């Protein structure tokens, strides 16, 4: 399960960041922010023609000593970043994928809310609860 889930706007500012409260929030902010470089690298690696059919899931962005950072980018260039604990070896790529898909669906719902102003930080209870289900439950 994830220790940090972030939604980053097209312009690379955070729309939503939630991390396990037991660990330093700041650290995750840095991690997620830094991962954007890798996202950009991955995106620029794909040719322009292929950009349309490219897969949204970007896979493992980079591993750090303690965490693995996975990325996902919607067609509107909104990025999702999920940080999982490196020790959590049970997580398979498929599970990460499904987490992203769930996140994407929920994010779409947020976008469909007529009262949501695109570009604002996400403050949605539904989205929050979806994220909570994916987060490591900190006891």
């Amino acid at each position: 399960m994830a220790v940090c889930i972030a939604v980053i706007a097209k312009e690379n500012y955070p729309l939503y960041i939630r991390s396990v409260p037991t660990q330093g929030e700041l650290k995750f902010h840095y991690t997620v922010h830094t991962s954007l470089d890798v996202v950009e690298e991955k995106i620029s690696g794909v040719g322009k023609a292929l950009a349309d059919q490219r897969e949204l899931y970007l896979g493992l962005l980079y591993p750090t000593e303690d965490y693995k950072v996975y990325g996902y980018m919607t067609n509107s260039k909104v990025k999702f970043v999920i940080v999982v604990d490196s020790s959590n070896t049970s997580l398979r790529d498929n599970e990460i994928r499904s987490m992203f898909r769930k996140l994407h669906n929920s994010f779409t719902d947020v976008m469909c809310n007529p009262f949501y102003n695109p570009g604002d930080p996400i403050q949605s209870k539904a989205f929050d609860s979806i994220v909570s289900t994916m987060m490591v439950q900190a006891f």
Partner: protein
Amino acid sequence: MAQCVQSVQEFIQDSFVPMVAVLCSEDAERVTRKNSLSFPELLRPFCRLTSEGHLRDPNNQVVVVKGLRISVTGINTRPPQSPELHRLLSRTVSVCQPPEGSPANVFTAGDYDLNISATTPWFETYRENFLQSMPASEHEFLNHYLACMLVVSSCEAVPTEQFLKLSQEQHRIQHSGEYTHPKWFIPNTLKYYVLLHDISEGDEQRADSVYEDMKQRYGTQGCYLLKINSRSGSTGADEQMPDPWSQYLHKTSIHNPELYEESAVSNAVENNIGAEEDVEPHYQGFCQSVNNVDEMRPQKQASGTSHTSPTPRGTCLTLNDHDHIRQFIQEFTFRGLLPHIEKNIRQLNDQLVSRKGLSRSLFSATKKLFGGGKVPEKSIAELKNTAGLLYPSEAPELQIRKMADLCFLVQHYELAYNCYHTAKKDFLSDQAMLYAAGALEMAAVAAFLQSGAPRPYPAHYMDTAIQTYREVCKNMLLAERCCILSAEILKSQAKYSDAATLLIKMTSEDSDLRSALLLEQAAHCFINMRTPMVRKFAFHMILAGHRFSKAGQKRHALRCYCQALQVYKGKGWTLAEDHINFTIGRQSFTLRQPENAVAAFRHILINDSKQSAIQQAAFLREYLYVYKSMSQLAGDGSLPQLPLPCLHSSQTRVFFGHERRLAEGEKQAATHVSLEQEFDRDLSQLWRELEEQVVSVANRGTVPITFQPSQCCLNSQTDNLRHPLAIVEEPIIVEVVFRNPLKVPLALSALCLLWKFTLKDFSGPEDGTTRETVTLNDIIDTQVIPEFTISPEETKVARLRLLPHKTGELHVLGVVYNLGTGEVGDSEGMWLVCVAGSLAEDLMCVRGQQNLEIQGPRLNMTKEEKTSVRYGPDHRLDPIITPPMPLLEVFFINFPTGLLCGEIRKAWVEFVNVSAVPLTGLRVASTHPEFFTFGSATSDLTPVTPTAAEHCSAYKTVAMPPSVATMSLVSPAVFGVTSGDQPVVAEIPLSRGVLGPGEALQIPLWLRGPDREGVHEINFLFYYESTEKTAKSPKYNLFYICAINHRVLRHTAFICASRSLSVRATASRSNTLHSRERDTEEQQEAEEKNASMLVFVDVENINTSEAGVREFHIVQVSSSSRQWRLHKCINPVGDKDSKLTSRERGKLCFKATRCRTEEGGIVSCTTPCADFFFRRGLHSEARRGGVSAGGASQMQRKSHTPQSGTDDDWTSIVKKCSEVELDIIVLWKAYVVEDNKQLILEGQLHVALQTIGKESCSLSQKEETQEMVLLKFKPDVPPPLSKPSMEQLSHLIKTCLHYPESYDHPFPQKSLCMVPVTLTLSNCSLAQVDVIVDLRHKTTSPESLEVHGSFSWLGQTQYKLQLQAQEVYRLFLKACFFQAGVYNLGTPRVFAKLAQTSAMCETSQQSAMPALIIVNSI
């Protein structure tokens, strides 16, 4: 990785250079000492060879050695031990700071523009020092001494003996085994004998002879005579000599650990004295004789420490000497060193070749024997720890490595690579990991340096080497060296990503400095990538900054954080940004850069931070602490600017004048303006118009050009282009809007305004009396708010008061306050305050200010202003204090809130002059002038005090017999309403025209409920002036002219009007003939006939509140007209009051006749009634733009017979015929039950009759109430030129038949009966009318023939007449009857048209009523 000064090749070559030891005799040392240099130091600047050297490799190939550098050090120079090394490196790094104004290159990546220093000189310094201070190790020979210079002075008694001594010494050091430290490359080290000759002292001939002797003894290639010190001492000190040592010697200072100071923070110039002690400490161990030199040292040091410019070095050396030294080195290298190396390579090669076959087979045999990978000399147990494996120095494996190193040093990289490669294989097969790693490292480097590059750079060699060094050998120094080299090589091949990975891998917990530097380099790698990774750069910069700060390198830490901040700034990553800012703040503070610290902290606090409340509180406390210490440092200058709370400057409001008194007993004060009111643009426009009107009235009809509407309350929407005027001794209230962006409360204390005041004396004639003054309370009282707490995330306004005591110019600059955390309320704080009041100062709070800078509105007038963004001035906060002015207060007594429509109520108004200056010219303007009246000047029948009048009727009741109409003439002028006057403005009578200081005046005020129901907002504007007209005096300066001429007071009243009566009136023309009252005079008769009218007044009680109003009584009906007057009431009920309860209706009928005089009149001519009558609805009529009755009649009279009229004129003329101009005033009484008390309310309603036959109503027409107006984008089509309608035209001529009602005729006698009939034609219009009278029966309808056929008109049956205006014409006709019966005589048809309008055809006039005549037969 940052750009370096050196190229990679240069860097690597310089990292591995041949090492030469120096052993100096005591005398020789003394000779060099003269130049404040030791012998190795003396040589150092000249150690790079400028010319090419040559040598032959074992295959007799010539190898060219280019740009070779040799390293000459004292034999006892010992690389510093690890802790020392750390300190030294740390010091060099901290000393090396980026130059202040270095051209930082702007780096653009995506949407980031970064300002990054391209070079990192501190890293280069570190690297150089690090590599130089690498301890010599067993497994490699690169930094082992290849040769040794033995230096002896020529002034020695027996130099040859000395040489011998030194040679023995060297031999002892190398071979006795006592010394572990200086490591030697090969057993038979090259000894080079140098005779140092001091030209200024020694005997040159002797030196030469000694040299000759030496040549004989050591061969020409093994010795040298170096002549230096051509001049003595400081003689030529003033001469400018190049100082080649300066750039070398400060670096060597790292070898002097004693001088290392922890407080290296100061970026001062490095002390160079360390250079002198370079070698000395180590001498003490083996050369006691140097003691006296040692004695000298402290003094030198003392003189050295104090110097600002470095001690002059090489003072005894001339440029010639420099050349000598250079030549010496060249000689040494080419004649001594390189041949020595060449010889050794050859020797080693021979050894290896000869041993090859044997050793290979032997090795493989032993390997097989021992199961692989085991060195025969070592036991199995020892081999486990392969890292600690040591070969004996003469081991064959080391020979090849030795050869490789030699080749490497003389730049024969190809051979070196081959040897390294071979050595690597051997070491690996022996599992001698340290050796293998060394060989791998050097193999990679050699491969890289091979100019032809036959093979790619083997990066994996380096990786393996680093890994081995780190993990197997646990030798971080070697790993680091390897890493630095590899990263540098990778960088040169643009493999930034690999370099960064390598560098990051190398960071570890054991050395913060190294980690910091490497991380920084890694960050630079990221930014230099083909697609720059800005965020990675920033992140690694932060990591580097963190490590720097851990390593105590605060400046570098700060720099790293600052560079990283550029990426994070303003991108929404607030948590990270705050963290960086916080760190920058702290670092800046510790580095004594309080401004930066404050700025950084300020940033954290100002931003809408997402931090938790606790975190914010911590930030705030830290900020306050930093701030406090900074302000203490700064001393008592101007107060610092505080960032918190946020000040919304533009929302600042300024109010001039006293706070309003709401009510005093039953007195109700004028609402005026207060800060509580919201600004309303429409309303302010309305007030402005009112003020303009009243000012124009006061100035006899013109508005002066200097007119400026009074603005008591200034805000962002008011016009603030001019300096507002404030009056001395009247307060100025500034409302400042604070917002607390934090989640913690803020406590402000001692909050007050900051201002600047320029004294100006306006009473003086000259205008030069200006003085700058300081904040003194005798000039301006400044209100101080002792406590002002703002809760978390709250927006709160503070009202700050100033009371000026002097005239002049005031500038409100800002606010001053103490800022503290809002946590004073906790127990500890309370305790502090309670126990010792003085301690309260220690609580965290700082005094500072915030400026109020208000930007004016954006200018958009000229093209220039439109194309650029410019803002106008805003002088809201710069009032001019003018001399005293009168100040009026207005109170209302018994002012109602609800009225019936048309109800008359009496209230009182009190004017009080509260200033010390008399006031005059009191006027009032109102949006609803018909609503109130102060009574006419003539009426003095009102009671004097309001209390006495409480139960009196507003009307004066005059006892008179009912149904007798009284008539009195009143002119509207008496009631202050004249046609030319602005009815909006009313003058208020003052006794003697002046209201003195402190005086009060109470006058009655009549109010009349508005005609329409609903809530009405009624605005009063009271205008008054000072008694002295200031602007008229020419003495006053221009500045003063714009001062206040008048003042105003506003009042807004809300009146709720409820329905009372609805009065409808109709007038109809009477056709009756007043035959019985007929006068003899012709004219009189005509008038009478023309001018009588019936007026029906329909009164309905439409009041809906049945509980309140019981009944209405019609008390009186009056009329006002210029032409008509009401006669007695034709009332069926008789004389009784007509009474109407709820929903009842009544009808009254009056006769109206035309007045003889043309003067208007009103019957009820006393004050309230007449006042309101004249004030009624003038406004609305004027707005309607219609032709008012009075106006039209006047116009008519002026142009009696328009000669050439347009259609319009005709229209009006035609209209006029059917117009009446009669106003009816209905006075009523209502019996109201309120609180179980019966009250009698009185009121009046007005009806204006305009057209005959058309109903008029007291209520305003519905069309006016229309509130929703459709938006129209096109201008209205102008109404078509109104032609008089047929209906109107048919009213031109009034016809009347006069005949006997019955006529007796003896038909039997005379068959024909002739009856005379008079047809009176009366021209109603004021123009000439052509009339055609046709007597013939209509032939069109057969019935009429039937009916009327029985009689006929005799004589002329068709007449054409012309009637003058108002003319009455009688036409005498004869009707002829044939038999008795009842006949209708009304058959004549009258056609009329206006005489001048040829185009129009005649219109049939309204036929008279059926005129029946009875013809009796007798």
